[in-house]
């Protein structure tokens, strides 16, 4: 949980594999890294067993690059495809029982605050749609109502991809899947609205079709979660196996879905806007200059 753990133990440098040496010497720890520099530094994510062409992996790759302080971050996950990649990254990963990832993260973020005080230590939950909206639904909503200060990211592939294609709460109405042959009979759950009702300070939908946008959304969510409250990101990460998308058409599908039903939306609470503007200099959230001028006639 600091730059101290990203270095060699004395005398072991020459025995470490190349990937480890590259990580220590050319990794993003302690530096400012952006997606435009991808391909020229050693990434925190390593080789992983996810399917070829998986959009979820691309999103996880971008998300890990976007963490503002990777050396001070812990990821929490649960059963599902995503954990296969997240656990192959050089940042600590806590694997909860199915559905309790937000409960684990609540305790973890509170414990880190007790131990480290004001020094920022980020907790990021990355779980699938099943872990977030179905099996972990109760703990997710309660952590939001308690305003626990950590980020929840849903990797929404709209199916239980890891177990053969059952329908999930986030599957679209009418979708026919291998293990849901009659088609889903209910609407897709509106988690965005629920996050707003539960009091999340930041809610966004994003598609990995736009790496820079993914980066900016993740950065904002993690920074707001440090002090203001819960943040929630819902990312469309198609399952090219269960939805039979050819791997070279995954980005085309992402583009079509983004235009159709997954447009970029962002909700930032007033408190979070003020926090981002004052603490981190986000110009778009600075108060408009017209506001004080309008206030003068009222006083008169």
């Amino acid at each position, binding site marked *: 949980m600091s730059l101290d753990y990203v270095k060699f133990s004395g005398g072991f440098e020459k025995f470490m594999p*190349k*990937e480890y040496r*590259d990580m220590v*010497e*050319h990794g993003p720890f302690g530096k400012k890294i952006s*997606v*435009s*520099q*991808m*391909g*020229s*530094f*050693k*990434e*925190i*994510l*390593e*080789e*992983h067993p*996810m399917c*070829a*062409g*998986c*959009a979820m*992996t*691309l999103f996880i*790759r*971008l998300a890990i690059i976007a963490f503002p302080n990777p050396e001070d971050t812990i990821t929490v996950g649960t059963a599902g495809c995503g954990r296969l990649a997240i656990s192959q990254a050089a940042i600590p990963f806590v694997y909860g029982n199915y559905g309790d990832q937000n409960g684990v993260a609540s305790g973890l973020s509170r414990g880190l605050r007790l131990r480290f005080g004001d020094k920022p230590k980020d907790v990021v939950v990355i779980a699938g749609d099943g872990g977030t909206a179905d099996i972990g639904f109760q703990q997710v909503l309660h952590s939001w109502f308690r305003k626990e200060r950590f980020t929840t990211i849903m990797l929404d592939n709209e199916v239980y991809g890891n177990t053969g294609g059952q329908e999930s709460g986030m599957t679209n109405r009418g979708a026919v899947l291998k293990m849901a042959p009659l088609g889903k009979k209910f609407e897709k759950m509106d988690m965005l609205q629920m996050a707003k009702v539960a009091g999340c300070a930041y809610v966004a939908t994003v598609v990995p079709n736009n*790496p820079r946008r993914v980066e900016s959304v993740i950065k904002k969510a993690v920074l707001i979660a440090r002090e203001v409250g819960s943040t929630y990101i819902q990312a469309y990460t198609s399952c090219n196996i269960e939805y039979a998308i050819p*791997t*070279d*058409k*995954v*980005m*085309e599908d992402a583009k079509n879905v983004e235009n159709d039903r997954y447009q970029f939306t962002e909700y930032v609470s007033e408190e979070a806007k003020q926090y981002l503007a004052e603490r981190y200099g986000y110009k778009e959230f600075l108060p408009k200059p017209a506001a004080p001028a309008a206030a003068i006639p009222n006083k008169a």
Partner: protein
Amino acid sequence: MYLVADIDVSICAEKSCKLCTQYCPEANTIQYSEEMGKSKGFKYGSAYVAVDRCKGCAQCVWVCDNMAKNNAIKMIMIDQLPLAAVTDNIRYDEKSTVAVLSNPMIVIGN
């Protein structure tokens, strides 16, 4: 044998859009090298593929053809690649990487 992505340096080094490095789902697979383009007299550097990490999904081909419209990436059988970069031969520099190209089959066989 299996397919891996192959980037045409002469097209890539003229544009250097770096989109493929951002859209590959595999980490550190499409890398970027200033030297690879500039040593051949081009203005910019070029992207290249670490073939031992490429899973052959061809997402980069779609991105290069349709988003960047450069058509610089093709899928090629790995035993037909004349020269390729593998992870062990890649060195990280300040702002790019340096890859020693070698026959991909010999290196992987070892």
